[in-house]
């Protein structure tokens, strides 16, 4: 059997659950950085959440980020490193859009020259599947056991749209990892976000719709990907480029 080839920066198995989207996303980030020639010039803000598992297997310099602090942590890193290295803020939806909403929006507001990768799996994965601001109405989580009641807890938040429509940033896109074709497109978004940083264009946010089979209590391959394609994309989170500065 042919051996799977990994980028050399992935030095150990990163223990995401089977069928989790995080693993694909990590690989895409590494491939993009390598292809852009920045493999020895990359610092990642590693958010609290399942993102933090990346420290167990990715051989990059990584800041142990404060929960939700990505926008601010990455600002500090990038303002010091300037154009000598790329800075990625790798965050979950709960991290970037709940606790970190202020830091996320303010970094975009300032048009910080950073690349934010926000993994939207519609819940707090790491802590066992609580409701996040991206949880769909009616979605059962451990803190919305009868399904999310939007009358008291709000409607799913769309931070990419908010930033695209409100702030003077470089780039906003939403992708997913449901098929090889979508993975390729998402890789293109990530690469564009990093290229913008290299070109000094400013803030790029790429949200990625990602399955969390463990907390969705669904089959990792079929049901989870189906949910993204049939529920998330058509009704709440359209994919594609939302903003390209200058266009």
């Amino acid at each position: 059997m042919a051996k799977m080839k990994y980028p050399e920066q992935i030095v150990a198995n990163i223990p995401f659950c089977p069928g989790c989207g995080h693993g694909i996303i990590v690989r895409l980030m590494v491939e993009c950085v390598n292809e852009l020639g920045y493999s020895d010039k990359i610092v990642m803000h590693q958010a609290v959440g399942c993102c933090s598992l990346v420290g167990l297997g990715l051989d990059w310099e990584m800041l142990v980020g404060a929960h939700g602090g990505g926008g601010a942590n990455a600002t500090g890193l990038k303002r010091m490193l300037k154009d000598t290295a790329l800075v990625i803020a790798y965050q979950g939806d709960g991290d970037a859009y709940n606790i970190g909403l202020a830091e996320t929006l303010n970094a975009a507001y300032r048009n910080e020259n950073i690349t934010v990768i926000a993994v939207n799996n519609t819940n707090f994965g790491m802590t066992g599947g609580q409701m996040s601001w991206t949880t769909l109405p009616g979605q059962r989580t451990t803190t919305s056991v009868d399904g999310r009641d939007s009358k008291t807890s709000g409607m799913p938040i769309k931070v990419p749209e908010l930033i695209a429509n409100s702030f003077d940033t470089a780039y906003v896109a939403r992708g997913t990892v449901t098929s090889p074709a979508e993975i390729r497109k998402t890789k293109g978004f990530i690469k564009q976000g990093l290229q913008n940083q290299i070109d000094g264009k400013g803030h790029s946010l790429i949200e990625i719709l990602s399955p969390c089979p463990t907390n969705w209590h669904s089959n990792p391959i079929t049901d989870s990907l189906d949910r993204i394609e049939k529920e998330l994309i058509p009704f709440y989170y359209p994919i594609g480029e939302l903003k390209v500065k200058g266009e």
Partner: protein
Amino acid sequence: MGDMVKGNVAMGEAAIRAGMHMYAGYPITPSTEIMEYLSWRAPQEDRVFIQAESEMAAMKMVYGAAATGARVLTASSGLGISCKQEGVSYMNMAQYPGVMINVVRYGDGLGSLMSGQTDYLREVKGAGNGDARMIVLSPSSVQEAYDLVYEAFDISQKYKSLVMILTEGGLGQMMEECEYSEMKTVPFASWGYTGDRSKDEYRPMGMGADVYAHALEMAAKRVTIKEEMQRWESGFLDDAEYVMLGYGLPGRAIKSYVKARRAEGEKIGYIRPISLWPFPEKAFKGINPGVKGFISVETSDDGGMVEDVALYGKKYGSGFEKVPVYGLFCPPGIPTLRFIGEKFEDIKSGKMKEVF
């Protein structure tokens, strides 16, 4: 002879001259002039100044910048420092150097705009979650505030520890003569992140995989700091019947008071702690064994330092454990010599009871 400078401005200039690379903060009285000054002074010297959206964010920016080996500073007052606690704790975990300034305003919650020393317990006894401490230094003049900030960056790098300059609204706002020292140009520390994972001096992130080893390292570091970093000023201790202790502006007030009373023959001495953590317990070694009382003079509801005076004071000398510890607590502001004198009479006459 230096020029007349405001305390907050002197501290801002000290940071620049000490080679500070980056400042992030959020305005709050009575510390705001530090950031106002740095907002134009830092870019002038090619340093980074960021007005953050909040104190929480400011501290996290400082944390991110510190990871690159940069010299970082943030300043605030009272509740603003409360907001920074999570970031403070991350700095401790990673053992990143950094300097913080708290220009204290009196009180809990929103507090007041008056000068105070009400943040002693938070700054001296802890530093966010976890067991960490910050090295806490407290000046009693504008010149000393300048000197301590100037030195704080080196101290913080030496011990891989945050250094907190704990000062008061009164000092931040006051103008005095101050002499500036030479401008230092300092490179980023060699262990800082550059983005190149393969370089020799790679700095492990967080606590590392071995939490037990991390705990031992942190504990050992604090023993060293306790031994090496105690600082104080004292006088007239060897025959003193009463010893007054005060830091910051009250420290300056007791020094004047004690000198004046000594001239009249009153057997009284003083200790002005400059380091609050580590507390200068060594200062107690020369005190008259027959001392009748220790008096902690503080601008506070019911004292913070008084607990350390009791804890460390009673540890030294023969029979010090029975020496009463009094609290001479002054409401917002700076204690006047008359106020100190009246309360001192109450202590001697037995009207005021000891705290410990």
